[in-house]
């Protein structure tokens, strides 16, 4: 049985899209407060695994346990669990018809049933935390990529999630904006948030990750520490991948 400290437990996860076999038996346990960085070539199944954790993708087979509860087919329970899992997307996915502040308050009001005032107060706290309280009344279309992603992080945090999932949060950003997003993520990691990040930011992995997972062809090839990954990779595929991304 899982210990209570294991906040995410993935057992023998398979996900097949018609012909494409995205996940072929992934098992993983993440302890509370740990930061796990997932790397791997494109098409290796890292994003699919992340999206299975909050059932944005429904697995073909296998089990997902979040904080001792198994995710199932019950929509109500699923919605409640999703509210506990924040997710940050590669393309931000802010709601363009709402201001930055409204982006952060809407789910608080609709899902958490918080009052307008309370939601607004929490939203402003989160906007301050990500460093852009002055952008509260600006629409996403008038924000830079880095600012949009920070609003997206604030939006997820305002729900007081137990877990944060990051799906390549800096891949769509201009180079000069990557740091402002990574800084927010670093702070979050220091505060003890449980995080699973699909990311190729090796600097972030080195300084924030407790564990690193290398995936290829829908399988976890190597599960190690940042030190282990950079100094002593075990598998040939890991070595090849690292040589390709660290060459420059």
């Amino acid at each position, binding site marked *: 049985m899982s210990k209570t400290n294991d906040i995410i437990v993935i057992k023998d996860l398979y996900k097949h899209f018609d012909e494409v076999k995205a996940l072929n038996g992934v098992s993983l346990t993440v302890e509370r407060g740990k930061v796990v960085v997932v790397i791997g070539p494109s098409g290796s199944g890292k994003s699919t695994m992340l999206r299975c954790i909050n059932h944005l993708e429904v697995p073909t087979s296998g089990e997902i346990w979040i904080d001792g509860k198994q995710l199932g087919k019950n929509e*109500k329970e699923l919605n409640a669990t999703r509210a506990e899992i924040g*997710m940050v997307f590669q393309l931000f996915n802010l709601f363009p018809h709402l201001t930055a502040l409204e982006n952060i308050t809407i789910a608080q009001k609709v899902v958490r049933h918080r009052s307008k005032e309370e939601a607004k107060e929490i939203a402003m706290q989160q906007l301050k935390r990500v460093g852009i309280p002055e952008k509260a009344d600006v629409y996403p279309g008038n924000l830079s990529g880095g600012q949009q992603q920070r609003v997206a992080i604030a939006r997820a945090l305002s729900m007081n999630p137990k877990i944060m999932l990051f799906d390549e949060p800096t891949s769509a950003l201009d180079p000069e904006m990557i740091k402002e997003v990574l800084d927010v993520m670093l702070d979050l990691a220091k505060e003890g948030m449980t995080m699973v990040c699909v990311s190729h930011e090796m600097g972030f992995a080195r300084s924030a990750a407790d564990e690193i997972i290398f995936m290829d062809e829908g399988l976890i090839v190597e599960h190690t520490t940042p030190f282990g990954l950079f100094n002593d990779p075990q598998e040939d595929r890991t070595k090849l991948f690292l040589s390709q991304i660290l060459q420059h």
Partner: protein
Amino acid sequence: MDDRHTPVIKDNNKQTSDVPWWFLALILIFVWAFYIFYTRENYSDAFNFIKIGLRVTIQTSLIAYAFALMLGLLAGLGRISKNIFFNNLARLYVELIRGVPMLVLIFFIALVGVPLLVDGLNGLGAWFTTIGLDVLGEPLNAFGNKAFTMNGRAIFALSITYGAFLAEIFRAGIQSIGRGQMEAARSLGMSYGQAMRHIILPQAVRNVLPALGNDFVAMVKDSSLVSVLAVRDITQVSRLYAGSTFRFREAYVTVSVMYLTMTVVLSLLVQLMERRLRKDV
């Protein structure tokens, strides 16, 4: 500054090809029409007779459009629903309606559909009476075909017809919103319905407002079809006028100008709205 280096900027506004001549011509037609309505007795007579139908035309268009909006939204949501029953029901509705000419549909719904509905209600009432539920049985039995006026049937028919068109507009609008919006909303714990209502639909409706506006203009014109049910809209009233006075020219000039006035004004409003929306994005 050296004049030679100043680029020559063509003032496009001053080119004769850019003047909206068609619009000026349209205004001229209006001016001419209203001039003769005012000065010629035959025409002012026709105008005064036919304008009685304006209320019915406007009322029919507005009410039918309001119902069509509701029906269209429901059917549009059905078209994208993963629920097999609703999805297929919505598809069947849209295909059935779009495959039959509107004129035939209006005859069918008003003269076949409504009597069938009345029969059904009466049958239900009889059944309620036999099981002893007179409270429900009596009012249902009391329904006769006369309970549904031709005006009501016309509105009913137009609503059902336009609901199918609007369903496709709503469907397209919803599908124009990227998948990421639904995913972001669901990842925050919103249910499908909450995500639809708060995130997807506000964006989708905004995107299709011009299309909805254009369909309202079309509805105003198609409301003339209800004249076949002897509903006294401006088309029917102008037919009556022409029939009794043999002033065909006066009758049909007048009714055409009335439709034109309404549709041109509405189209301009839709264009204005479209420009506004584009500026905001």
